[in-house]
């Protein structure tokens, strides 16, 4: 019996009868983070970090049976020791360490190893088997420093402002939006947000995290209010009629996919900023090396290529089919999350 098995419901720890980030409803789910492909509806109980809990409740409904844990806190289930360790992906995101009779596995969910000023900094956990994503598991993906990308965004915003334009920036509403809000140059102007972003902001502020001041875009407000400001919205909204409410605007997208000219052109935004909440090639390879694991399971992204590469440098590596997407552009639900929370 493997400590973690790959089943139709999700990653399964049979000794504890616990699932990690299951995609079908189960009794006991340990959740790495609040993105919708990792925390889904219908589980009887949820355990995640204290800082991930508010967003998960916001998304899935406050009635769910969910509890929080501290990073590093040990939770024993039938002799199996579970603990959460920062994954650096978004606020509250964790790698889940599973230990039984001296054998250690780590399911890392989604992660990045460089600090972003908002999420808890990634922490490397030594283990025997490591389950990794590979959303950007190709050597063409090499991120620049966050400060460099933020100055690109600042430049763009400034130049739009000088031309009297609104800067509409597409960014995932949970994670990247807050990262941008806190790291851009606030002296340039005001920041407005789409409802989906602002709802998440409210939840995050309530849990005591400092976010720079933002203003919700409300239907029917005067055009002049937005002039020269930065508007942050989910990619689906920027593509839709929603953005038409701004008379004269320049559109941008912040995503790791913007590293490729092809995907950048397909999105037909004015500007692409290469900013991702996932690890790039070097981060993936270095993170794996740092775990000192022998066996590497690759769950989503360029799995076949990345796994083949790991095999070529001496790891035992296998591709595991999951329903995680890790995709930053194509999967965020269009429905505003607040509506879901009340109807769930």
């Amino acid at each position: 019996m493997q400590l973690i098995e790959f089943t139709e419901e999700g990653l399964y720890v049979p000794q504890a009868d616990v699932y990690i980030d299951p995609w079908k409803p189960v009794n006991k789910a340990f959740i790495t983070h609040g993105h919708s492909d990792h925390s889904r509806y219908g589980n009887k109980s949820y355990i995640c970090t204290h800082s991930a809990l508010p967003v998960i409740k916001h998304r899935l409904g406050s009635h769910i049976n969910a509890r929080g844990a501290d990073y590093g806190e040990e939770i024993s289930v039938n002799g199996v020791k579970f603990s959460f360790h920062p994954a650096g992906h978004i606020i509250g995101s964790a790698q889940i360490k599973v230990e039984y009779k001296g054998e250690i596995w780590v399911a890392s969910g989604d992660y990045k190893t460089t600090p972003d000023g908002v999420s808890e900094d990634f922490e490397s956990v030594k283990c025997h088997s490591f389950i990794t994503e590979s959303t950007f598991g190709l050597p063409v993906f090499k991120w620049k420093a966050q400060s460099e990308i933020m100055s690109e965004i600042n430049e763009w915003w400034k130049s739009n402002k000088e031309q009297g334009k609104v800067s509409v920036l597409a960014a995932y509403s949970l994670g990247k939006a807050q990262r941008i809000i806190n790291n851009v140059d606030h002296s340039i102007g005001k920041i407005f947000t789409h409802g989906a972003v602002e709802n998440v902001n409210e939840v995050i502020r309530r849990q005591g995290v400092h976010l720079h001041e933002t203003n919700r875009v409300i239907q029917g407000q005067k055009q002049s209010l937005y002039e020269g400001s930065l508007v942050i919205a989910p990619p689906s909204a920027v593509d839709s009629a929603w953005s038409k409410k701004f008379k004269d605007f320049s559109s941008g997208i912040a995503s790791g996919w913007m590293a490729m000219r092809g995907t950048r052109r397909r999105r037909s935004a004015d500007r692409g900023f290469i900013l991702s909440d996932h690890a790039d090639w070097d981060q993936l390879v270095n993170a794996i090396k740092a775990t000192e694991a022998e066996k590497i399971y690759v769950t989503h992204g360029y799995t076949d290529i990345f796994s083949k590469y790991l095999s070529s440098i001496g790891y035992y590596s296998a591709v595991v089919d999951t329903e995680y997407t890790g995709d930053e552009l194509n999967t965020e639900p269009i429905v505003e999350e607040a509506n879901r929370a009340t109807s769930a």
Partner: protein
Amino acid sequence: MRGFAQLFKQLDQTTKTTAKISALVEYFSTAEDKDKVWAIALFSHRRPKRTVTTTLLREWSAELGDLPLWLFEESYHIVGDLAETIALITPQATKVSEKSLSEWIDIIMRLKDEDEAVKKSTIIEAWSSLNQDERFLFNKLITGGFRVGISQKSIIKALSKYSGIEESKITHRLMGTWDPTTITFEELVLASNPTEDLSKPYPFYLAYALDIDIDQLGDPEAWSAERKWDGIRGQLILRGGAYYLWSRGEELVSEKFPELAFLKDKIDKDIVIDGEILPYRDGLPLNFNTLQTRIGRKNVTKKHLLDAPVIIMAYDLLEYDGEDIREKPLRIRRSLLKETVQNIDSDRLLLSEEVKFDSWDELSIERDRSREFLSEGIMLKHKSSPYKSGRKKGDWWKWKVDPLTIDAVMIYAQRGHGRRANLYSDFTFAVADGDRLVPFTKAYSGLKDTEFKEITQWVKKNTRERFGPVSSVNPELVFEIAFEGIAKSTRHKSGVALRFPRIKRWRKDKPKEEINTLEDLNNILANFG
């Protein structure tokens, strides 16, 4: 290189034509003349002669990026562009270079006679002194293919705006053969009396596909119809006793079709004819495939001349006795054309006959017969239309025959590359043969982005097996596949090869049990092959 990289970035970052033109004007106003000539050349698909093979570029960049070659190739497949893949994979620059675009081009051209070691050290030196954007452009100088969404028209508009010279004059000056290594900006663009160039073609007039109801064209009397021939659009120039043949891609192809050269001796007037270069034998056009076998070749062999003989099927007359007659109405040009073709009297130059019709219904019936004539449909031209430049709506329309279609099930999906790098976008389709599924075509265009996204999600959940970037999937999704032609093939499992296959629509309404069969496919082959 920095100025050119800046220009390229500006062009690449906007979809607005006005913004592109103003970026070009700004570049023309600030760049060195030599760089301007090269910029025009590169954006109109000219590049320095390749002095380093792409195989070597791949090896060196993989080595520099410390990656196995297979991983480089996988990355290239997904990125979809060699120059870009190399730029992304090679390490960040360690130095800064002040060399200009034309200086870098000189460096590349001088590599021609150098040995491999010199080539390698020169290229690696270049990679380590250029930033990522510049590296990409440097690689493009070698590999070619600057796809930046900038049309020839925008370049001409920008040059016109910058120089104050009429667009039509600049269009003419940029056409034809010129060598960016020797020509100056003055000679290319500004010179008011460019050396008399007998070979200069006129811009082609291209038609849009008919997008309105045929009845809306009004009185059928006002329109002239011809078959739309399936060859290569060309311009035959007979001036001053010389013969030139241009393809629509502004490429001089005279030497590829030597069997037409004798036409220059058959007429003593200067004329320019717009027509189709058509493979043709015994009074009938041949399949387009036969022409394809010879256009890619550098040298024409006797076998080519025998297997794929060509004629010019004449559509229009643009110049008569040295006079530009494009502004005259079609009916006048047509009658001059008819007379000219008759006088030349050769079986290598035929008049594209008019299709007679009294009503749109009659023409519609003629259109349905297109495949009998190995033609793609009907061309409609207003009898009083002038010969315009470029693709214009209104006076000329192409009215293609409806494509052939078949319903098939998807059995393989492959990750896309380039614009569709994060989606599954290349699919293989099968028809039924009893319990068996027989793959018969691939197709990757025709769906909306939202549909690609939906299918990508579905593929991830319905994968049976993986073969690198290809996934075999549960045979469940049914699509209607459209194609223009069909031919027997020994290279395909199904025994047929399709021309221009694409996805017409996703048949969500159709269960997989109701897809077409191999027998249906063979019937289409028997009728239209």
